[in-house]
């Protein structure tokens, strides 16, 4: 395996004759017989090693890095735009949110999240998560991954965890970029919450940390949807586009006032709930409801992905 191949994310294993793995070949050797002799410690080690190699591939891939760079760019553009607006406009013309951002460096993070969770972050996450299984199938490398006595469940778990780590990385990139931009352009100090109360900067940073955890969990839930779609196709763009359609349809449905009763069942409804951390006292009920919704989505789409992938005929 050459370095160039690794960097472009294509696996080639020379010397192996391509053999289509079908249900018949897998059922001839039930997985229990193979995995039983392997001590559990070695299996977990193999799991982490596989995850490590997946993460290496994901974070070395230029496309993924470019996506993260775009995410990092948005808070910078937003910050500079607001900085110019705050510098030129009179106090009366500024809306409360711009004033909040201009008044405190930490608020840019929350503003950036409120823009990015709607579309751009879901796009970035679904590109990586939608590519996970379908991409391997499309380039014909999936059967080699399954050739190792690994088991499909484990491969799926590794692929999903890889997407989750990337989702959190994307969230952290947005937070760090916004935080740095904010600290450079705007004054620091105590933070004014939406409720009008003021908290210390350390408390504000803690609230950003909670936001990162919450938004990351939301993106992980979206990654579950993308991975599930990814198991149904061999064309990664299909899974990515499918996830995007899912997000856009959800956003459209949310925008229709008459459909308000179904809004709680739509995943993107819960993404913006992170503003609960900006209230006093923190609206833990809103955060808890959001996390429960994310958990439900992960459970449902994770199990769909598993049911599909473990029974799929791998022909490429």
């Amino acid at each position, binding site marked *: 395996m050459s370095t160039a191949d690794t960097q472009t994310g294509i696996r080639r294993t020379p010397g192996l004759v391509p053999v289509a793995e079908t*249900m018949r070949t897998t059922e001839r050797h039930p997985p229990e017989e193979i995995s039983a002799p392997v001590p559990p410690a070695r299996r977990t080690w193999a799991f982490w090693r596989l995850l490590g190699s997946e993460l290496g591939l994901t974070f070395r891939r230029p496309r993924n890095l470019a996506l993260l760079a775009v995410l990092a760019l948005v808070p910078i553009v937003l910050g500079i735009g607001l900085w110019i607006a705050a510098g030129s406009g009179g*106090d009366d013309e*500024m*809306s*409360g*949110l711009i*004033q*909040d951002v201009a*008044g405190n460096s930490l608020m840019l993070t*929350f*503003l950036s999240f*409120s823009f990015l969770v709607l579309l751009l972050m879901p796009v970035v996450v679904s590109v990586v998560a939608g590519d996970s299984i379908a991409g391997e199938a499309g380039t014909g490398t999936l059967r080699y991954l399954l050739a190792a006595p690994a088991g499909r469940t484990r491969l799926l778990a590794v692929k999903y965890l890889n997407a989750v780590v990337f989702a959190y990385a994307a969230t952290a990139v947005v937070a760090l970029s916004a935080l740095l931009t904010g600290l450079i352009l705007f004054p620091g100090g*105590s933070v*004014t919450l*939406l*409720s*009008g*109360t*003021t908290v210390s900067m350390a408390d504000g940073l803690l609230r950003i940390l909670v936001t990162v955890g919450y938004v990351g969990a939301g993106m992980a839930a979206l990654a579950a949807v993308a991975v599930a779609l990814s198991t149904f196709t061999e064309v990664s763009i299909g899974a990515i586009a499918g996830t995007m359609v899912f997000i856009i349809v959800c956003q459209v449905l949310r925008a229709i*006032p*008459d459909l*308000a009763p179904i809004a709680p069942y739509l995943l993107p409804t819960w993404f*913006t709930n992170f*503003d609960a951390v*900006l*209230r*006093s*006292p923190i*609206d833990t*009920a809103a955060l808890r409801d959001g996390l*429960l919704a994310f958990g*439900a989505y992960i*459970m*449902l789409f*994770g*199990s*769909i992905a*598993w*049911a599909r992938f*473990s*029974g799929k005929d791998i022909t490429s």
Partner: protein
Amino acid sequence: MRRGTFVRWGVPIAAAAVIGAAIGAGPVIAAVSGDPVLPERSAEQLLADAAAATSKQQGIAPMSGTVQQTASLGLPALPQTGGQTSPLSLLSGSHEVKVWYGGDQKFRVAMPTQLNETNLIVNGDQAWYWDSATNTATKLTIKEGSEQKHTTPVPQPTDLTPPQAAQRMLEGVDEHTSVRVINNAEVAGRPAYQLVLTPKDEGSLVQEVRIALDGETYVPLQVQLFAKGSAEPAYQVGFTQVTFTPPAAENFTFTPPAGAKVEEATLGEEGFGKKAEERAEHAADVAGQVKWVGEGWSRVAVVPFKLSDLQAQAGQGADEANGAAMLDTVLKSATPVSGTWGSGKLIKTKLVTALLTDDGRLLVGAVTPEELTKAAGVK
């Protein structure tokens, strides 16, 4: 299909079932554990207990909770120009406010919206109104003996608290109403009495009004208005979550944050700005001209009214522009009707019917269109 396939796909189906069960767990658990049954009370006993509980020296016990208000009045879709905190928006859709009540004239009402929040914090004679969207803190000084401030015809966010809504409803209890008590209701997870007021009048559009009182503290927890022929309440305001423990003291203190605009307003003297005073004056003016036809639930208000006046008035100011847009929408949905009394435009919603006659009268009532046209014949 192999057998293994069915077993495998059983897993996501089971997952969906578990999630569905979790979503529906509340009603299911309630159904399994049975309805909470409180000792039986007659309506008079219940009202007396409630009055005793609320008029005690300390008033209502300290509490906090979430109040949800849902309106599906069957109005034509109103333009959402006023933003989510506009009083007009309370007429349709669902809204949530958080309430903290600390006793001793201390309370806080917060209306959280997406990345915004409006707060009303009252602590004794000091009150603050905070709006994060405009970054403005308004210090409200409440003048003594200015209880008449709520004569403005638009609903205020503070009207949402169940005690006030219940009080308004109880004023309507008289010989036109049959009252019964349900002792096994549950609101916000608490056993509650439900006072059911049913209009005896056939012409009324109101099926019944249900007021839920907490079984322990007699605090009104929920008010529901049912229109005839619909199982869901047309208007509902009530706690979705409530705790009767004193809320933290910092809820009732407010210091304007640095960088915020601070304004001052005195309620009762100058009004909440000049506009509110004008509005109140206008409302009083209109109230003087109102003629009532009928009695009880099928009472119809007859107001001298000219469409051109309203349209001219609606053209002024940003707030009135919303009104103009709303007026246009409402008028578009009106159906022309005519009879021996003349002709006019009829606007029908689930709860309220309005008739705008061509001879310059506006008839409004919670009655069927037939009743309204009958009232239009009474000169």
